[in-house]
């Protein structure tokens, strides 16, 4: 086919396109609805929940996971936009990382050393790992679906951002239920679960997000 002909054909295909942002927002709404449905089916919020948010260690879980999710949305949008500079956004990871670091430092300073290991191991580490992953799964699927409309230069990185986003939202949901409040627990088990989602997102993204 001649390039002139191709251009004539392309110009005839002027159906309006949804922006990347609204596409991602829509997909996340669906994914999150799925995650909330899963939560409602198998878990319940821990007792005293809204009030417990005044507790710094409880609040920290939400601040860390939700700020990670927010930063990941921002990163993902940059990573799928040709010519956009995602590297200049890496510093934003210091927000969830910094809050968690302050929490861990405070825990180590304020609580006696013999409480550290029990706090780290917690009561429900295996639940935490599997449920954060489970809650994150519909979000990851939705995020990758939306990011597929993008044009990432590095599909694995874009997928990783989608994975971190899903891990962050999955962790925030699980935190509604989770009774392990030590920042050491959050660092270890939430961190592992989110790391797993990030790697999963990178591996899937590498295959599915190239264009």
């Amino acid at each position, binding site marked *: *086919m001649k*390039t002139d002909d*191709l*251009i*004539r054909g392309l110009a005839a295909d002027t159906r309006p396109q949804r922006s990347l942002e609204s596409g991602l927002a829509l997909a996340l709404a669906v994914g999150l609805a799925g995650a909330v449905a899963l939560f409602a089916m198998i878990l319940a919020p821990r007792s005293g929940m809204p009030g417990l948010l005044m507790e710094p260690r409880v609040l920290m879980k939400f601040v860390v996971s939700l700020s990670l999710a927010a930063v990941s949305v921002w990163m993902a949008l940059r990573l799928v936009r040709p010519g956009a500079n995602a590297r200049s956004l890496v510093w934003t990871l210091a927000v969830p990382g910094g809050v968690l670091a302050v929490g861990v430092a405070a825990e180590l300073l304020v609580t006696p050393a013999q409480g550290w290991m029990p706090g780290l191991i917690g009561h429900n580490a295996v639940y935490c790992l599997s449920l954060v992953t489970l809650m994150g799964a519909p979000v990851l699927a939705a995020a990758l679906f939306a990011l597929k409309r993008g044009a990432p230069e590095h599909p694995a990185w874009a997928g990783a951002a989608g994975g971190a986003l899903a891990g962050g939202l999955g962790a925030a949901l699980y935190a509604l239920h989770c009774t392990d409040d030590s920042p050491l627990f959050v660092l270890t088990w939430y961190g592992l679960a989110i790391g797993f989602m990030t790697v999963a997102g990178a591996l899937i993204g590498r295959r599915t997000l190239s264009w």
Partner: protein
Amino acid sequence: MDDRERRWMQLMQAALAGDRPSYERLLREIAPAIRSVVERRLRQMGAPTAESEDVVQETLLAVHLKRHTWRPSDPLGPWLRTIARNKLIDHLRRRGRRVEVLVEDFAELLAAPEERPSTEADDVERHLALLPDKQRSVIRSIAVEGASVGETAERMNMTPGAVRVALHRAFASLSARLKADE
């Protein structure tokens, strides 16, 4: 940003708002710009420059299918260069060449290119032949024969909406087939 890139931005903004003549004009202006850079790059790599039209067409397809990834407030140049570079890399990889194309190689994309009549390319043509009948007929009617959506709909006994959908799907599957053509 020079006048030309500013004009391209305006054309693309109009295109995204549904202005077909602006969009067609934009594509006709960027095609030779992409072609001259791709030819130069292929020549430097010792690859046949006859392949450049394949890369040009793949890039135009990608520009079209990913146009919503451009934000009207952003300059068009970096966006376009990144897409063109990515499609050149894809093309070279498919042909099993070692690839080292930096985005800077496309920096001159916005310099004045030599105008040339466009030529045929093999890849798109070859994959076009493999599309489902309806999609192929719609592309042929609108792109090659220059029929309108309405005329095509009448001729093929379809609704105009169905013709538009078939046209869009045809471009999307062309692009996917090109990508998968290892």
